């Protein structure tokens, strides 16, 4: 088990009476692709942020390789253990494609971009000159530039048309299966969720 939620409960400080997550227990394994499925407002993004170390649970803890992520600086967890892909707002607009990928980690950007299907002619371009699907693939390339073993994606296909969406999902699946990473994708599309290794329904996670 690489990443594990242990007895995790969470409420927002603004709404203390409303438990978003209640006693969530779940372990994620490497080499597999997971989908977190549930209607809007069911706490998918919240759970993903806790797994990513963007926030800390009100109760319980997140373990990475069996150790609580709070044992060390959370930025260490974000930098070395996980990488994140969002629905939008992914890239920094004053940096080129290559520079954006470099932000993600130490690995050389060009081969990763190649693998993501971003041709050489785009590398020096400003990211705003790319299509939505291309931008999302650059974001995934950036996630792969780090040595992290977990890839967390929050509705990565939400802004894409269907064909492109399937491309991205296939890409993520390949990353899980070929590179042995643990990929966790948030989605509210049952169709997409059906194609992954393990689909988790939010209402089954406790609460």
């Amino acid at each position, binding site marked *: 088990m690489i990443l594990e939620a242990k007895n995790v409960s969470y409420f927002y400080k603004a709404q203390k009476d409303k438990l978003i997550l209640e006693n969530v227990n779940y372990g994620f394994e490497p080499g597999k692709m997971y989908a977190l499925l549930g209607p809007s407002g069911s706490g998918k993004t919240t759970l993903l*942020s806790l797994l990513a170390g963007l926030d800390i649970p009100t109760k319980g803890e997140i373990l990475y390789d069996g150790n609580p992520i709070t044992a060390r600086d959370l*930025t260490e967890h*974000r*930098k*070395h253990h996980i990488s994140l892909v*969002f629905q939008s707002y992914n890239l*920094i607009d*004053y940096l080129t494609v290559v520079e954006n990928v470099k*932000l993600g980690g130490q690995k050389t950007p060009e081969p990763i971009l190649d693998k993501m299907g971003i041709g050489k002619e785009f590398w020096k371009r400003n990211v705003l000159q790319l299509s939505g699907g291309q931008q999302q693939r650059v974001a995934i390339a950036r996630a792969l530039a780090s040595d992290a073993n977990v890839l967390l994606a929050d509705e990565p296909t939400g802004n894409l048309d269907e064909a492109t969406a399937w491309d991205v999902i296939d890409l993520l699946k390949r990353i899980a299966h070929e590179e042995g990473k643990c990929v966790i994708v948030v989605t509210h599309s049952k169709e997409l969720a059906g194609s992954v290794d393990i689909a988790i329904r939010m209402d089954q996670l406790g609460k």
Partner: protein
Amino acid sequence: MNSLQRALRSVIRKPIKSILLLLVMITVCLFLLCGMACRNANVQTQDTTRQAIGAGLRLDANEKNRSKRLTECSQKIGEGQEGSYGGVHQEKLETAYGTQWLVWCDNSFDCLQISDIEKLAVVPGISDYNISTCITAVNPVGFDRIEDPDMDQTNDMGGVVLIGNRKMELDSNVLSGNVTLKDGRMVTEKDQDVCVISEQLADQDHLVVGDKIGFNDYHDPEHSQVHEATIIGIYQTEQLMSPLMAGDTFRSENIIFTDLRFPEKAEGSKNNPCYEHAYFQVGDVDDYDAVKAAVSTADIEWERYDLIDRNGNMSTMSSNFNDLEKISTLLILITFAAGFIMLFLIFVFWTKNRNYEIGILLSLGYKKRNVLGQLFAEAFITALLAFVISFTLAPAASSVAADYLVSAQAEQAELEKNINADKVTYSTVQSEQTVVGVEVDITKEMFLICGAGMVILTAVSIGTAGIGILKKNPKDILSELV
């Protein structure tokens, strides 16, 4: 990629967002530099009542600075307190009309600083120098002064006046050619207890070179000690010298030139001289401007003085020129305060606008201080640019500002003088000053201070604006994006 590299790309590739910041920073820089330049400006005035003659420079006390020091000293003594401080004395007088306060200054308050004079005397190019004392009223002993028989003498002190000189041939009356020798010689720095009297006085009292005459304190002519001086010369005047005050004591014929230290003894304040003018002779007239420049950069307390050149042009430190210093200081302070508010608002706007970028970097595992460091770096790059631009504009801008401020101040002073014309009487004639120019100089120190000021201002305002980021956790920042 480190924060500096990101900052450079952000500034270069998205310059529009930095333009407002740049403009504000240039404005702040320029205002700071102008303020500082005006504080240290040299206001050149033409003094119509004082005339400097010959290839020399005259050092006089500055009137504005004198009244400023007077106020400071009486504050030190305390309001409603009797006492003395720095040569200023405050005394309570119980009179039939009630309590009255008497404030008077002794010689030590008005005396030019001898250490300053000596510093200027050794400036290269100064060949000789003279010091003249204040016109000192004393009581004549053993001779009669010249009196107007038609004049009512009840209000006069019945004295004569002494002018002590280190070197009489450099006295302004002699330099102007008005006073010349009729007999004997003039006073030199080696003389002690000597005097030079007018031909009228010599005629009336049958005095000749070699005779001795005496003087003592006119406040107590019966008892105070008499000091004798030997007559070494007799002078004549082209025109009568204009008296300092009304009354026969001050009339031209009763003016007696003595050695430098004699007047203080005669008036009963030995070792407490009152040096009023210092005159520095320029050896080679062709070097006049260079010597003048060297003198005016000498390390003395310039605020206390006016330097008057051979054309009667006076250089006065701006701090003594009406309220110029106060206004400039105010300008600097306002610039700082307004600059802080504007920069703070710009940075708040900045960080708000760049939330998404901050969120992405935080989610990628960048530390908050790294992200904040980028914003700092961007601000400092812009500040540096603003600084360079202001540098090139500063000399022109500051001289425009100084000209404006000085002329506004001069107008204001004129206005006040007219308003107060019938309310205030002056004991001595006030000098009439017309502004002929302003000299502003932007020095290296000003650039340094301005640079430091900008760095502090930027750091403080961006730091304050950045607190918002430091307080939030990354999830909050990211959830603000959706």
